[in-house]
């Protein structure tokens, strides 16, 4: 297996394990239907990214996790990511991502918390000495452990 694929595989496997450890996934949302979440090899292996599309959770809420990868100096780099947690109507509750519009100290890693109002002021997300996001921190925010 080429190094690129091996590194991406390792990350995909880690994310899948984290998802099943932290969330109860009922299935993948397709239109108005909830279908079985199938292993999308075109997405994971060929497109060099991890994208779950919208997943239905047991508590009625939804989550979507996306990461885009590059391999730099034999290491996996998560160049772009977005983790979105929303209610059953699709309204965002939490969103962590690394788009660059905020010229604040949290940039580029930041999290929007919409659970207590519509404030768009982002909070820090992820220890700032690391390049890549920590998915477990996002799950901790969902559980309310990082408020």
């Amino acid at each position, binding site marked *: 297996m080429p190094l690129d694929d091996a590194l991406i595989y390792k990350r995909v496997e880690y994310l899948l394990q984290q998802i099943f450890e932290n969330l109860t996934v009922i299935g993948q949302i397709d239109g108005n239907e909830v279908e079985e979440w199938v*292993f999308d090899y075109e997405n994971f292996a060929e497109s060099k990214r991890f994208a779950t599309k919208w997943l239905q959770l047991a508590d009625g809420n939804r989550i979507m996790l996306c990461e*885009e990868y590059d391999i730099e100096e034999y290491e996996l780099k998560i160049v772009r990511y977005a983790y979105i947690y929303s209610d059953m109507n699709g309204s965002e509750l939490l969103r962590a991502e690394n788009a660059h519009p905020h010229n604040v100290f949290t940039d580029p890693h930041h999290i929007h918390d919409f659970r207590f109002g519509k404030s768009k002021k982002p909070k820090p997300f992820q220890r700032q000495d690391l390049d890549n996001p920590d998915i477990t921190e996002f799950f901790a925010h969902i559980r309310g452990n990082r408020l």
Partner: protein
Amino acid sequence: MAGNKPEKAPSFASIEEASEWWDERSGDYWDKAKEVHFDIQIDKKPLHKIYKQFQTAYKELTGNSIDWRDIPENLQNSLRTFQPLSVKEFIKLPQNIRMAYFASHKSPDNVVLNKIKKRLAFYENKYGITSEDFYRKYHNSESLYEGSPEQVCDFLLWHGDYRRYLELKNAIR
């Protein structure tokens, strides 16, 4: 049934229609039937190809060969029917088999590029904007998250596809 059967069997619009008609009248027309011979050719190539890819990937990863009988039943079904495994099933496979499954589903770059071009065309048609303009407008912009849940999902996938498209285009060139 035999009392009011037509002299000749009618013509049918579909195989299903013919099948249903003959199921109901089994034996009524034996006296008019002629013996025929036909061959059935079942194409084994697709299973052979994906199974070979899986075997090759497994051997590369482990140094050992794997026989069909050693593959878990749910994975055998997936290889046979081309239906991808559910993520829950995938994550429960033994690690070497999981990695080989992942590696065996990788197409050559030119094939991946064509698949991605089709997806880009789909998004361009759906949202009425070129991929280049989309990327320029939404890359590093939070307006990417302002649409409906369906649009946010499409835009995130579109963004990733366009990045990969640029990467592959440069690599192939």
